């Protein structure tokens, strides 16, 4: 296997997961459009596609773990490539959020006459930024500190402590998500309430979605750490999860200041 190749790169074995992921994406998009236009079977195809995508993610990444932790294909250069790749992915996510913040600023900095030239629009019951949003921001920031604690524990070889730190991180993340969900449920305005509702829920909604994904990633890292997969020299998966978590954290600060605080005045 790795002894018979005269280079330190990883040439992956043939795998069905890329094509299965593509088919899942096809089903999701076609099903999504069918559903939104009330075609028969749209919802079914959409759910089938989503399940397929989730399944593909599970088996693909399970295979990555097998190739790396169990088969040893992740040499130093492979790790470097993975790190670069993940950083570029996070950059693309930054671009994604940039678009939503642009949309929010476009509508809020020069509100149109159709909504009365004022922001927030008349009648919108703005959420008090100093209540739940103000509580949630430090919760997320502390979970960022906890993930750094976990990282230091891994680097120092303190395996049990790393597990505890990851548990703390995930716990804080779940508390954040819970509060945010409660706030969504109780908000006096909906996504259909003028451009305010649209920009608010799109920006915070996608952020929440990313928090949930990040939480899942951290849970997996916690399980792997518990099982002993991560060593103090080699823990690229954990680093990726930590970077992603810090990214989610920073993104949170932007809507807090611009949408919750400034947008509500």
């Amino acid at each position, binding site marked *: 296997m790795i002894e018979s190749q005269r280079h330190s790169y990883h040439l992956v074995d043939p795998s069905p997961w890329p094509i299965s992921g593509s088919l899942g994406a096809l089903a999701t998009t076609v099903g999504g459009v069918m559903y939104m236009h009330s075609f028969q079977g749209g919802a079914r195809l959409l759910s089938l596609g989503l399940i397929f995508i989730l399944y593909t993610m599970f088996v693909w990444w399970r295979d990555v773990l097998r190739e790396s932790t169990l088969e040893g294909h992740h040499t130093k250069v492979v790790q470097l490539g993975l790190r670069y790749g993940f950083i570029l992915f996070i950059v693309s996510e930054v671009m994604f959020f940039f678009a939503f913040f642009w949309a929010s600023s476009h509508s809020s900095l020069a509100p149109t*006459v159709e*909504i*009365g030239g*004022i922001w927030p629009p008349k009648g919108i019951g703005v959420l008090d930024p100093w209540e739940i949003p103000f509580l949630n921001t430090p919760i997320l920031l502390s979970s960022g500190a906890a993930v750094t604690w976990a990282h230091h524990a891994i680097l120092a070889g303190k395996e049990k402590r790393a597990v505890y730190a990851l548990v703390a991180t995930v716990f804080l993340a779940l508390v954040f998500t819970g509060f945010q969900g409660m706030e969504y449920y109780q908000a006096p305005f909906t996504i259909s309430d003028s451009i305010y509702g649209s920009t608010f829920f799109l920006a915070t909604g996608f952020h929440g979605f990313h928090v949930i994904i990040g939480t899942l990633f951290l849970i997996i890292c916690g399980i792997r750490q518990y099982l002993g997969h991560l060593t103090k020299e080699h823990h690229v998966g954990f680093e990726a999860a930590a970077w992603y978590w810090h990214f989610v954290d920073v993104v949170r600060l932007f809507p807090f200041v611009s949408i919750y605080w400034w947008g509500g005045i």
Partner: protein
Amino acid sequence: MADEIELKTAPADFRFPTTNQTRHCFTRYIEFHGCLAAKGESNECERFAKYYLSLCPGEWVERWSEQRENGTFPGPL
């Protein structure tokens, strides 16, 4: 010929230097109704009325009047 007809329109407002004068019209409309609310039907408000009547399209004025009657006018009156 009849008496000289004086042709005037709203003066250029440096707050709205752009070609698109939508905000100018809206602001004058709001100013007029703000003046009415503060001073009642006085002559000073006539000036603001002339400004918004020359700047704003008739359809908009009608729509905003309807909204004001229904209580759905979104602006800060």
